């Protein structure tokens, strides 16, 4: 798809329309990646700034460009800022009689402990519903890398101690 640009200074309006239309979806993706509102806002802000900076050069879907920028920013910034990272917070062990709720808490906790790249792959594959090839293109890696990262992530989710005995039974 080729994005058309209006003449006469309406590029600003076009960008603002893009933010209005795509911003909530991008914030959702940022929230899934970072799991924290403040970090998600930071990630979205930087993504939009970079997107605006490249706006005249974007010839395909701006949202696809922004999503690619967001994922790569997330993976690279968080990797570089390892010194700033804090340990994943353990979710409170709320007493409950519902095994499904326990399982969801375990899964959420395990997801929170995934390395950044693996989490990004999981979000793109199983929330954004992208194909392996699309994820590879978006992240700038090979399909083989996406496959291996997905496999490792699913494996971690399956054998994570936080998943408890039930998961161990399933994985056997």
């Amino acid at each position, binding site marked *: 798809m080729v994005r058309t*640009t209006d003449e006469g*200074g309406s*590029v*600003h309006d076009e*960008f*603002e329309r893009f*933010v209005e239309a795509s*911003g*909530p979806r991008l*914030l*959702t993706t*940022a*929230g*899934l990646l970072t*799991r*924290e*509102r*403040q*970090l*998600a*806002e*930071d990630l*979205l*802000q*930087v993504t*939009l*700034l*970079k997107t*605006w*900076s490249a*706006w*005249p050069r974007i010839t395909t879907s701006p949202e696809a460009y922004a999503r690619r920028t967001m994922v790569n920013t997330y993976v690279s*910034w968080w990797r*570089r*800022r*390892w*010194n*700033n990272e804090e340990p994943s917070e353990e979710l409170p062990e709320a007493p409950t009689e519902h095994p499904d709720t326990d*399982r*969801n808490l375990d*899964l*959420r906790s395990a*997801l929170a402990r995934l390395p950044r790249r693996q989490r990004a792959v*999981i*979000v793109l594959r*199983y*929330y954004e519903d992208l194909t392996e090839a699309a994820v590879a293109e978006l992240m700038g890696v090979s399909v083989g890398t996406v496959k291996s990262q997905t496999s490792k992530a*699913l494996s971690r*989710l*399956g054998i994570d101690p936080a*998943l408890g005995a*039930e*998961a161990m039974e*399933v994985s056997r």
Partner: protein
Amino acid sequence: MRIDDLTRELQAQAEETRSWPMPAAPSPVRIRHHRRQAVLVLVSAVAVAAIVGLPQLLDRDTTSGLPATGRPSAASSPTTVPQWHEWTALRCPSRTRHTCAVPWILQVHAGRYSSGTGARQPVVEGTVTSRDLKVRLHGPPRGRLVLVGAIRPGPHSRLMARIGDADPVRVEEHLALLWLPRSRGPIDVWVTEEGVPAHQESLVIEEYRPVENTGG
């Protein structure tokens, strides 16, 4: 645990984010306004320099070839240092973090810059002490800045930075923002610490690229 459970969990997390309000988006109009401000600041600075400096220039003792301050002139130095009051952190890694010493986005005069390549090195890690850090920066250097120094340094820490083949410069206030010189190839940036290291100290090199764009 099945893929369906994973999908449902991701959808549940996504649903939670939908209640979050959208943060203020970067406004192209505002960015453009900054650019206009930059022009005004530049014109004002030139006017002030002309008014203040012209009489001194006319009265200057031309028998001495040395600059009055003893500092290297801008032409001989590859970098100039924006003073602390000349730049502002606009976006930090997180407002919940305890420091904004190394922001994601900063503003120097009227220009806005976003962090790019960078690295951090704890000075003390167990029994190992690492007192220098080097990062190789690639890409066109036009308009790029680099923040060098250390965060949480000790009171007796002395920091030096070097960019490419230029002479080392003393890092005042533990962090300094330097302009990258024009160079066709990659540029190496070093930061070195002397003196007494602190346990929480980390050496920092962070590159910043301009993000301003009028969009047409």
